[in-house]
């Protein structure tokens, strides 16, 4: 594989990526202060709306939080949301601990590492099941995880949820040791570019990068960890103090996100219409074949590929506990902690009985 391949694929992906970057930049500019500007339909505006500060990441995993904003669902539940964009769960958790935001949607492993250190945090609801796709170049000849022995793989930050399940689930299932597969830890966009440029043999990415790479960079997915080992990834987190002071605010935020999750699961078409502007600036993306694909379609596929859920089931709690075991094994946690101590499922109990 040479330059021909690179030239062919690099451009469409870069354009798609640029579109995403542009959006994320503008999201920084507007997302923080956008509030109440939308015509909230169907609410009697007699009561003033209560202000809530929601932390989110611009990734498809956080679609419930973003969609609730884009489709005015927070407003519908009597809230005036202020969306705060973060670039990593690590930053967001600090904002929750420091009281700069009321709730955040992020990977639960972040919450556990901070709980382990003594931070006062609670997991109050579910958002999304783990989705990490292993993509390779179509001509690479790599057909399964086993084929990765001695090959280089790009993944997110060491110590992130993706990295924990990569070592604890993906490699173990394939009978490989961590030292069999050299890793390069980079941002998902750099991961896909490095894959296209032939600098790595595979990339382990989440949405929308997975479908973006498939549509525009000639990549194919050979494995998705959530299919073979379903586990909860994104959850809703609030500080103990916020829950003490204003549980009602957290509950209403969860109600709004639950409605967003129902839309994502039942009418992805409609959800994609709301979400596309948040992720893509261009209406069409160039494909490798030289044609184009509507951005809405890429986003819809990314939504449909994922599994969003608002409740945290017994099975999922068991899976979380298993992940805690992996974190201890990988030296991220000093000792086993009981996941149940981190959960506060009172909203869920009420919501389920409705």
């Amino acid at each position: 594989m040479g330059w021909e391949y690179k030239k062919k694929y690099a451009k469409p992906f870069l354009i798609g990526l640029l579109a995403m970057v542009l959006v994320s930049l503008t999201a920084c500019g507007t997302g923080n202060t956008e509030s109440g500007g939308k015509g909230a339909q169907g609410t009697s505006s007699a009561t003033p709306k209560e202000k809530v500060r929601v932390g989110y990441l611009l990734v498809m995993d956080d679609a419930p939080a973003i969609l609730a904003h884009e489709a005015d669902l927070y407003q519908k539940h009597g809230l005036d949301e202020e969306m705060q964009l973060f670039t990593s769960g690590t930053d967001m958790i600090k904002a929750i601990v420091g009281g700069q935001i009321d709730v955040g949607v992020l990977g639960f492993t972040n919450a556990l590492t901070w709980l382990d250190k003594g931070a006062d945090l609670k997991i109050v609801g579910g958002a999304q099941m783990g989705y990490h796709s292993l993509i390779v170049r179509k001509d690479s000849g790599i057909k399964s995880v086993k084929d990765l022995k001695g090959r280089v793989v790009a993944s997110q930050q060491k110590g992130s949820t993706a990295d924990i399940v990569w070592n604890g689930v993906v490699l173990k299932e394939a009978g490989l040791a961590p030292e069999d597969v050299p890793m390069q830890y980079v941002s998902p966009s750099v991961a896909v570019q490095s894959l296209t440029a032939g600098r790595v043999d595979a990339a382990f990415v989440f949405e929308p990068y997975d479908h973006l790479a498939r549509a525009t960079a000639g990549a194919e997915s050979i494995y998705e960890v959530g299919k073979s080992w379903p586990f909860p990834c994104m959850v809703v987190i609030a500080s103990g103090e916020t829950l003490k002071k204003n549980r009602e605010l957290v509950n209403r935020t969860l109600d709004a996100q639950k409605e967003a999750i129902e839309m994502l699961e039942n009418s992805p078409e409609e959800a994609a219409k709301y979400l596309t502007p948040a992720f893509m600036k261009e209406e069409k993306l160039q494909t490798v074949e030289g044609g184009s694909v509507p951005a809405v379609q890429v986003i819809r596929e990314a939504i449909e590929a994922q599994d969003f859920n608002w409740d945290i089931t017994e099975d999922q709690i068991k899976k979380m506990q298993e992940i805690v075991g992996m974190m201890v094994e990988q030296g991220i946690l000093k000792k086993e902690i009981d996941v149940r101590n981190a959960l506060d499922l009172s909203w869920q109990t009420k919501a389920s009985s409705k």
Partner: protein
Amino acid sequence: MKGDRRVPFLLAIATLFLIWEGVSFLLPPYLLPDVPHVFARLWEEIRKGEFLVSLGNSFMRLGIGYPLACFLGGILGLFAGLSKRFAHYLRSIITILQSIPPITWIPFLVILFGFGNLPIVIVIVIAAFFPMALSVMNGTEGVERTHLEVARVMGASKKELLTRVYLPETLPSFITGAQVAFGNAWRSLIAAEMVGGAASGLGWSISYSGEIADMSGVLMNIVVIGTIASFLDHVLLEQIKRRLLHWRYVAGGERA
């Protein structure tokens, strides 16, 4: 360091530690561990040995990138002194490129050269080149015209002009350039390791510690980075400067 500067320097360090210790009383320990805790952690890490390997990797990258940047910046800066046109050309390039933070090249360099030390070394070179080249250019422009005239009258060739007039007269600017370049090189090294996919080094350790909520690890690395930079800049480079330019520091000398 001379005695009259040592006291304020030590006071500055003490002030920083006092502020840190004071703030650590106000914040929970998982957000800001206190000073003794972080030093205990440092001791533990040094004994483990992994930390020293990481440190060695950072130094290796710096040890290649920084001298290379000084050399390139110095040579081009000198040539700019000989040709007005080239000077304008070089200045324009520097003005355009200097506004771009060196770290932004990383993703691009990774795709171009693959992962490993090379992209990080290149970023160090880019970061340290500009101050060095600019300082030497300014130095060559400031060379006494009369000295040049005298040398020319006595029949000096271009080569002799460089070695006999320009080099000795621009030595101070080389050294100031090298000092500024060092600060840039060091900061870019850490930043590049944080994002460059390097799986070792001080910058990488910081970003990994941050990811796993290990604040004492983050602070320990910050202390190490600050200590090393101060030592190299204020002690080592300062000593070299005084050795080479001792005539400037003797009493009664100009610009003492």
